[in-house]
């Protein structure tokens, strides 16, 4: 019984730490390689060479946001810990938890990406400032 508890607690800690680490590092890596990602969709050159512009982020000081993803993953892990899939509808619960996990991963990744600080500026703040300009142009 005790071994079962330890296993569940370890799994919860693993989900919390692993999930947080994955989304925070993933967001930081995406911004770091934004130029390379854009190169998959755009061609280099022109007056505004977006690939060259965002390739400058390779040398940027990037601080990933981890607090909100940590809280979200901790809440998900607590659900798993206290309400593990069991009983006659175990398969349904597993499917629900899997879907919830995927959604959580996407949501926390988006949060981490938007709240990531690049050269002391939050990515979300940059988008906020950029949107009206793009609209007016």
């Amino acid at each position, binding site marked *: 019984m005790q071994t079962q508890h330890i296993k569940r607690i370890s799994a919860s800690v693993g989900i919390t730490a692993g999930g947080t680490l994955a989304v925070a590092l993933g967001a930081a890596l995406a911004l770091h390689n934004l130029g390379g990602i854009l190169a998959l969709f755009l061609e280099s050159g022109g007056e505004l*060479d977006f690939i060259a*512009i965002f390739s*400058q*982020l390779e040398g940027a000081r990037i601080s990933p946001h981890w607090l909100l993803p940590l809280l979200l993953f901790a809440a998900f892990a607590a659900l798993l810990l206290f309400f593990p899939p069991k009983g006659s509808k175990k398969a349904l619960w597993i499917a629900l938890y899997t879907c919830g996990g995927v959604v959580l991963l996407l949501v926390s990744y988006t949060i981490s990406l938007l709240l990531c600080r690049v*050269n002391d*500026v939050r990515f979300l703040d*940059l988008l906020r*400032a*950029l949107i009206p*300009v793009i609209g007016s142009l």
Partner: protein
Amino acid sequence: MKKTLIFLLALCILIPALAACAQDKDTYASGGDAWCMGFGSIEIALPKDSEQPLYIAGYHAGREITGVLDLQRASAAWIDTGKGGILLIGIDCVGLGNDTVTAIRNRLKDFCKQTDCVSVNVYATHTHAGIDTLGLWGPAAQDGKNHAFMQNLIDAAVLAAQAAYDDRTEGTLYFGSAMPQDLLYDSRSPHEYDPNLYQLRFAPHDKAQNGIRLLSYASHAESLRGANTLLSRDFPGAVADAIKADTGDDAMFMPGAVGGLIMTRELTEPFDAVENMRKTAEILTDAILSIENETALSPTLAYSRVDMEIPLDNTLFFYYKFLGILGNEVSRGDSMTGYDLHSELSVLQLGEVTLCLMPGEIFPELVSGKGLGKGDPTPLSEIAKDRGVQNLLIVGLCNDELGYIIPPSNYLLNEKAPYIDTATEATGENHYEETNSTGIATAQMIADAFAAALEKLG
């Protein structure tokens, strides 16, 4: 246990206090029997085998230098009255961000401890024929700085500072002025500018030593104009060379209130860039050598510094900060972008002359008060006068480059693309300067900081 806790508590209080003491002093005053000054000047070498291009700064984006008229220099003046000294470093370049100034200060930390240097202040002469030192003249939205050149610039500033300290000697400091005839023009109304050229001339007691001249003139250093792609210090360098040749004195050029946009006239027809620079320098040199109204300054020195958080409204500057092109520190604030830019303003009193070390290109009307309108801050000359300042000189682009500092009553933004496209008045007047400014609130912040810096001096 109790003793350990008290010990830890004491450490917590003492360590930050000691760290604060180790930083630059933000106020200082001293007086002695004589002035003590020294001068150093070092050429800024062009990087060899650098993969990054060398873009010319000031006019068009993405243009590389094609040759060299004269290399940019870092010149330094050491000033003291027998105790702690002040360093004034002038770099022949378009402007320097606060991050570059901090890098120079960090390199001089040990030097400052050894020499009792109270404060290091770095300004740009604002030559528009130098290599991009702000990063704004590369291809669109790409950093135009050459990092090897920036390193050479910092090295040269450090060497010039050390040379200035080694060169120091006692003497008398004189203040005087002259008015070069019909040389300046203002491209934006109200057409207000200071036509005078001011000189702080240090005459060593030891006649075998060279004199030092700090020259203040409110003009953009762009007599070579926008088509030029040859590297040069422009007329500030030519004037310093001419003064050296004529008198043996070393000279440093300090830009005054150059905003909005004060520059020298074209003196050749048809226009010849190099000849125009030569003629401009000749007129200025003649004016300097004609100065007869000199008065000796009493050997008292005072310095104060005020840190500011400037609201960053300019979205373009904000993108540049995100991309790492601008290196100023930022913090969350109440501006259009949601961020404030960290900057600083200092005041340096040399006897009866007060230098305002201005972190940008201030419009002259914000200094003189002529042509100001509703909602504009109290002019700096009035703030200075209220506090007993006799002679106020502006040293523009010092310790930072916030761009143009514009009176709020004359601030007009393009409605569709503010800070990206320029606005045009019904009269046809262009408001280009706003696109190179941090925001409408900067002028008031500067006036407040100047008043606070003078208050600190007591």
